């Protein structure tokens, strides 16, 4: 399942576009106050793009988009502290997704995403535990597991619908990925 990179400029443009979309979603979502008073709980809509990229373009490209989005997101929101948390969560989530991708096909994104989201929240908590130098923050783990499963299911379904629509338009992974699993 290794992707042959399409020619340079095209790949760059596509990844830049995905990063811009993810960043926009991230910044808009950051403006919406969260109703639940638990640190780390949010929908994480920007991860729709991450999920899509992992499945449509491959693990490496997804990592690039993720890292750029996390870094720029921290710069734009003016909270460099969040960089650490986002990185810890993002990397663990990415690892989980790349692992799960070996076992699941495009049809099971809805399942891959909540599992990855739980890993994301676990990663964030581990970073928080490191920064605060206390394991007390792990008391939030059950909340974050449940929240992650819910949010992940939502973003996963979004990514799945997105994928189907883009396939129908002929813009999705098909043009690069002849003969992968799935459809």
């Amino acid at each position: 399942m290794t992707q042959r990179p399409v020619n340079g400029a095209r790949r760059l443009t596509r990844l830049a576009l995905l990063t811009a979309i993810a960043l926009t979603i991230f910044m808009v979502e950051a403006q919406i106050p969260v109703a639940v008073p638990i640190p780390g709980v949010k929908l994480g809509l920007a991860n729709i793009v991450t999920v899509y990229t992992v499945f449509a373009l491959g693990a490496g490209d997804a990592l690039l988009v993720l890292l750029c989005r996390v870094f720029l997101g921290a710069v734009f929101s003016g909270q460099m502290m969040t960089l650490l948390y986002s990185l810890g969560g993002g990397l663990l989530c990415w690892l989980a997704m790349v692992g799960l991708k070996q076992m699941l096909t495009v049809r099971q994104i809805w399942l891959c995403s909540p599992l990855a989201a739980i890993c994301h929240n676990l990663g964030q908590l581990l970073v928080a535990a490191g920064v605060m130098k206390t394991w007390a923050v792990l008391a939030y783990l059950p909340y974050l597991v449940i929240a992650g499963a819910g949010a992940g299911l939502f973003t996963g379904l979004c990514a799945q619908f997105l994928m189907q629509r883009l396939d129908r338009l002929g813009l999705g992974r098909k043009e690069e990925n002849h003969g992968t699993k799935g459809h």
Partner: protein
Amino acid sequence: MNKQTKILAGVLIAVVLLSAGVLAWRKLNPEPARIAKISQKGQVLQEIDLTQVKEPYSFVIEGEDGALNTVQVEPGRICISEASCPDQICVHQGWISDGSEPIVCLPNQVIIQITGGGSQVDAAAG
């Protein structure tokens, strides 16, 4: 649905149910409120015995780059009433009076945890 899908879906459901179980168990068996430990970056700033508090009072914790958290203390409970951070999660969390959840302010790295006084490894932290 193939076999792997079923296994992974099972794992997901099990993890979620387990978490819900832990939360329910914690709600049913709250640790009696005793000592609020306020720490910043892992260093304990203050320990307040909430059972000994007679009069409500408040104080301010200062952090790096002008970060401020106003802590309010009342008999048996404690909260962060004002914070300089953008997300205000610690403020919205409101009063806590038992050990089920600490108040955490991630941007300012402040944490308030209520413990029973004795050995203090949280059951959830294991």
